[in-house]
C-alpha cells in the first residue's frame, strides 16, 4: 500500500517527462524537416498543384487521330477610311466560312465571330493572326469555339491592340476526332520499359535466390556450431583454396583452348554435346557405385579418382562446346527470326556467359575440391600421427597458410588502392600472417578441434550485415559506374541486394528448424551434406518459397525506381518526364507501375497460398 502511494507521483512525473520529451522531439523534427503549411496555402503553389494534379489525372495513354478545318477571315485593324465595315457574306457555298461583324474593328473592340458549314460538334480555338501573312503561325488570344449540330457557332472576341495598315486575319481552327482511339507513343514506350522492369526484377530474384541458398547455410548458427576441425585440417584447407583455384583456372582454360582447336563447326559441337554427357554418365556410373558395404582397395580408389577427374574435364569440354554452339546458332537465327530475333540474341548471350563463367566455375570447383581433400587429409593425419609430429606439421602449415591469406589480402588492397609499395602490400602482411599462424599453432594443442564453423559463421554474418545496410539504390549507383547506365547495372545491384538480404532471412529459418530430425538423420551415419539434404531442406522449403516471393515483390517495386539512378527500367522514363514537366506522360508511367506492382502482389500472394 505504501508502495502504491510512493510510486504514483513518480509515475506522473515520468509520464510528464516522457510527454515533454516526445513534444520536444516532434518540435525539432518539424523544424528540421521544414514543415510549413503556409507554403501549401500560397496562391502559386495551389495553382501548380492543381495543374499537376489535373495532368496526373489524365494519363497520356490513348489518343485520336484528328482532322482540322482551318478558315481565315481577313480583317483591317483599324478600319480603313473607305471601308464600310460590312463584310460580303459568301453564302450559297458548302465550304465552311466565317462572318465577323463588324468587318473591321478598332484595336480593343469586341467583335462577333460566326461560323457556318463546319462539321458538327467540333471544338477549337478562334485566334487573331497578326501581320499580313495568312499562313502565319503566330497567333493571339485563345477563345474556344464549339459548333452545334448544324456546324454553326457564334462567339465574341476582343481584337488585340495590333493596329496595321495591311490586312490581318481571324482564324478558326476546328478539330474533330476521327476513327477509334489508339495508343500514344508514350504508352508504347511505357510498355517497353515496364517489360524491361519486370524482367530486371525476375533476373535479380532468380540469381539472388540461387546464390543466397548456400550462403544461408553458412550463416546458420545451428549448422555451423558443430563444425570443428583440428588445426592441421584447417591450415591445409585454407591452402587448398588458392592453389586449387589457380590449378582449376589453368586446367579449364586448357580445356577451353582444346575445345576451340576442335572448332566451332556446328556438327562437331552437336556431336561433342551429345557424346560428352554419355561418357560422363558411364564414368560416373563406374566411379560412384550406388552402395558399397566394404571399402574398395587402394588401387581401385585411385582409378576411380582418375576417372572422376576425366569426367569433370569432359564436362567442362561439353560446356565450352555448348557455349560455342549457342553463340553460333544465336548469330545465325537472329536475322531470319525477324521479330523473334531476341531469341537469337538471348542464345548468343547465354553462350557468351557460359564461355566466360566456365573457367571461373572450374577454378572455384577445383578450389573447393582441393580444399576439402586436403582438409580431410589433415583430419586423417591429426587422428593417426603422434602429437609431436602434428605439432611440427602445424607450425609449418599454419605459418604458410597465414602468410598466404594475409599476402592475398594485401594484394587485394594493392589492386584496389594502387599503393605500389610491395613492402606494405605484400611483404609486411605476409610476415604478419606468418607470425599470427605461428603463434596460433604454438598455443593450440596439436589434436584440439577448433570451432572453425563459428569463425566462418561470424565472418559471413558480419559481411552480410554490412552489405545489407547498403541501400539497393546506392549499390545501383556503384554498378552504374562499374558497368555503365542500363538495366544490367540494375540487375547487378538488385541481385546483390537480394543475395545478402535473402541469405539473412533464409539463415534465420535454418536456425529455427526442429533439431530432432537433424539428430535422427545424423544418427543413421549420414554425412553433413546428406544431413542437410534430408533433414534441413525439407523443413525450410515453405519459408524459403515465401521469402523468395516476398523478395520478388520488393524487387519489382525497387526495379521501378532503380532507373532514377540509371539502373534501367521504367524509372528512367518517369524521371525524365517529371524533369520535363511532362506530367501526363509521367502519369501514364505511374499508372503502369501501380498496375504491375498490384498484379505482382496479387500473383505472389496467390502463389504463396497455393504452395504452403
Amino acid at each position, binding site marked *: 500500500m505504501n508502495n502504491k502511494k510512493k510510486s504514483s507521483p513518480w509515475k506522473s512525473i515520468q509520464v510528464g517527462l516522457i510527454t515533454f520529451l516526445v513534444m520536444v522531439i516532434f518540435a525539432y523534427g518539424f523544424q528540421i524537416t521544414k514543415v510549413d503549411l503556409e507554403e501549401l496555402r500560397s496562391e502559386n503553389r495551389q495553382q501548380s498543384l492543381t495543374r499537376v494534379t489535373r495532368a496526373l489525372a489524365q494519363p497520356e495513354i490513348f489518343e485520336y487521330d484528328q482532322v482540322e478545318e482551318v478558315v481565315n477571315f481577313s480583317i483591317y485593324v483599324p478600319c480603313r477610311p473607305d471601308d464600310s465595315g460590312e463584310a460580303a457574306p459568301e453564302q450559297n457555298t458548302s465550304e465552311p466560312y466565317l462572318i465577323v461583324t463588324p468587318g473591321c474593328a478598332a484595336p480593343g473592340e469586341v467583335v462577333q465571330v460566326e461560323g457556318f458549314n463546319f462539321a458538327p460538334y467540333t471544338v477549337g480555338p478562334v485566334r487573331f493572326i497578326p501581320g499580313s501573312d495568312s499562313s502565319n503561325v503566330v497567333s493571339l488570344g485563345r477563345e474556344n469555339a464549339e459548333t452545334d449540330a448544324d456546324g454553326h457557332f457564334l462567339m465574341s472576341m476582343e481584337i488585340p491592340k495590333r493596329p496595321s495598315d495591311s490586312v490581318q486575319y481571324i482564324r478558326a481552327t476546328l478539330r474533330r476526332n476521327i476513327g477509334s482511339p489508339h495508343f500514344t507513343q508514350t504508352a508504347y514506350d511505357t510498355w517497353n520499359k515496364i517489360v524491361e522492369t519486370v524482367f530486371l526484377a525476375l533476373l535479380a530474384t532468380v540469381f539472388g535466390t540461387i546464390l543466397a541458398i548456400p550462403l544461408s547455410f553458412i550463416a546458420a548458427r545451428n549448422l555451423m556450431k558443430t563444425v570443428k576441425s583440428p588445426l592441421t585440417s584447417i591450415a591445409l584447407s585454407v591452402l587448398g583454396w588458392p592453389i586449387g583455384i589457380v590449378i582449376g583456372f589453368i586446367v579449364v582454360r586448357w580445356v577451353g583452348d582444346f575445345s576451340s582447336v576442335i572448332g566451332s563447326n556446328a556438327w562437331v559441337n552437336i556431336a561433342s554435346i551429345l557424346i560428352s554427357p554419355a561418357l560422363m554418365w558411364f564414368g*560416373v556410373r563406374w566411379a*560412384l*557405385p*550406388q*552402395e*558399397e*558395404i566394404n571399402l574398395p582397395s587402394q588401387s581401385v580408389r585411385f582409378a576411380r579418382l582418375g576417372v572422376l577427374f576425366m569426367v569433370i574435364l569432359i564436362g567442362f569440354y561439353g560446356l565450352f562446346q555448348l557455349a560455342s554452339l549457342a553463340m553460333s546458332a544465336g548469330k545465325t537465327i537472329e536475322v531470319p527470326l525477324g521479330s523473334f530475333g531476341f531469341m537469337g540474341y538471348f542464345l548468343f548471350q547465354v553462350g557468351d556467359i557460359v564461355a566466360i563463367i566456365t573457367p571461373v566455375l572450374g577454378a572455384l570447383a577445383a578450389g573447393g575440391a582441393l580444399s576439402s581433400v586436403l582438409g580431410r587429409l589433415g*583430419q*586423417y593425419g591429426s*587422428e593417426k600421427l603422434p602429437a609431436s609430429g602434428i605439432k611440427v606439421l602445424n607450425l609449418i602449415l599454419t605459418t604458410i597458410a597465414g602468410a598466404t591469406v594475409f599476402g592475398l589480402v594485401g594484394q587485394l588492397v594493392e589492386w584496389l588502392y594502387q599503393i605500389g609499395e610491395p613492402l606494405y602490400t605484400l611483404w609486411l602482411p605476409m610476415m604478419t600472417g606468418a607470425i599470427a599462424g605461428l603463434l596460433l599453432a604454438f598455443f593450440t594443442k596439436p589434436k584440439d578441434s577448433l570451432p572453425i564453423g563459428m569463425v566462418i559463421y561470424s565472418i559471413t554474418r558480419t559481411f552480410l550485415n554490412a552489405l545489407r545496410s547498403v541501400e539497393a539504390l546506392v549499390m545501383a549507383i556503384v554498378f552504374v559506374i562499374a558497368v555503365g547506365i542500363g538495366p544490367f547495372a540494375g540487375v547487378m545491384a538488385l541481385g546483390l541486394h537480394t543475395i545478402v538480404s535473402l541469405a539473412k532471412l533464409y539463415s534465420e529459418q535454418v536456425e529455427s528448424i*526442429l533439431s*530432432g*530430425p537433424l*539428430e*535422427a*538423420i*545424423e*544418427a*543413421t*551415419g*549420414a*554425412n553433413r*551434406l*546428406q544431413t542437410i*539434404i*534430408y*533433414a534441413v531442406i*525439407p*523443413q525450410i*522449403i*515453405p519459408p524459403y518459397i515465401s521469402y523468395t516471393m516476398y523478395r520478388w515483390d520488393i524487387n519489382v517495386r525497387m526495379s521501378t525506381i532503380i532507373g532514377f539512378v540509371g539502373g534501367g527500367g521504367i524509372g528512367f522514363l518517369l524521371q525524365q518526364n517529371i524533369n520535363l514537366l511532362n506530367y501526363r506522360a509521367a502519369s501514364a508511367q505511374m499508372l503502369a507501375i501501380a498496375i504491375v506492382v498490384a498484379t505482382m502482389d496479387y500473383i505472389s500472394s496467390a502463389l504463396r497460398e497455393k504452395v504452403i
Partner: protein
Amino acid sequence: MLQIKNLTKIYDGGVKALDNVSFDVPDGQFLAVIGLSGSGKSTLLRCINRLIEPTSGQILWNGEDITAASQEEMRRIRRKIGMVFQHFNLVHRSKVITNVLAGRLGYVNPAWSLINRFPQEDIDKAIKQLERVGIAEKAYQRADELSGGQQQRVGIARALMQDPKMVLADEPVASLDPVLAHSIMSHLEDINKNDGVCVLCSLHFLDLVHRYADRVVALNEGKLVFEGLPTEIDDKKFKEIYGRDAERVG
C-alpha cells in the same frame, strides 16, 4: 558386447549429467534404462552413438573404442546403431518412404543420395520394413499425416533399414497411449528376439520394464544406482532409484 567404462558427461553449463557410469551389455540383450526425469538417461544413450561427446570415459563395442573413433569411422559405427526417439523425429514434410530410406544414408554413395536416388534393393527393403511394422500402405503419404503410433513405427522401420546390431530407444513410448505403447514395444521385442539385435531402451513405466526387459540399469542424478533383473526392484530399491517420497503406481 557393449562395455561402458567410467563414462562422465559434464555439459557446458557445468551440469554433471553422467557421473562415472560403468556397466556391460551382452549381445542380444534387452536392457531397460530407468530413472527420474533429468537423471541422464537420454545423455547416456546419446553418448553411445556420440550424438553427444562424452567428457571422459570409454565406450567399447565388440572391442572397438567408440570414443576414440574418427569422424569417418564414427559414421561407419553409427550406421550399425539404430535409434528411436520419444518424439519420433521424422522429417515431417518428406514422404514416409523417404524417411525410411534415410536409414540407408550411411551405406549408400553420398553423391547419389544427394539427388535422392537410392538403389532399387533399398526401396524394396524399405517397403518390406514398412510391411513388418504394418503400415506399408502409408508409404507414399507425408510423414506428418500419420498418427503418433504410426509415426513411431516409421521411426522403427528407419532404424531397421540400417541393419542394426544395436538399437537405442529413448523413451520410445512416452508420448503414446498404453495400448500403442505395447504395440510399439512388441515391435522392439520382435527385433530383439528374432533378429538378435541388442536393444537399449529408456522407460518410465515399471510394468513395461517387467514385461519387456531382460535387465535394468537405473540412474539417479547421473550415477548408476541399480543394475540387475527387473524382478529385483523391490520397494527399497525403488525408493533408492526414484527418491524417498516416491510412490509406486501400477
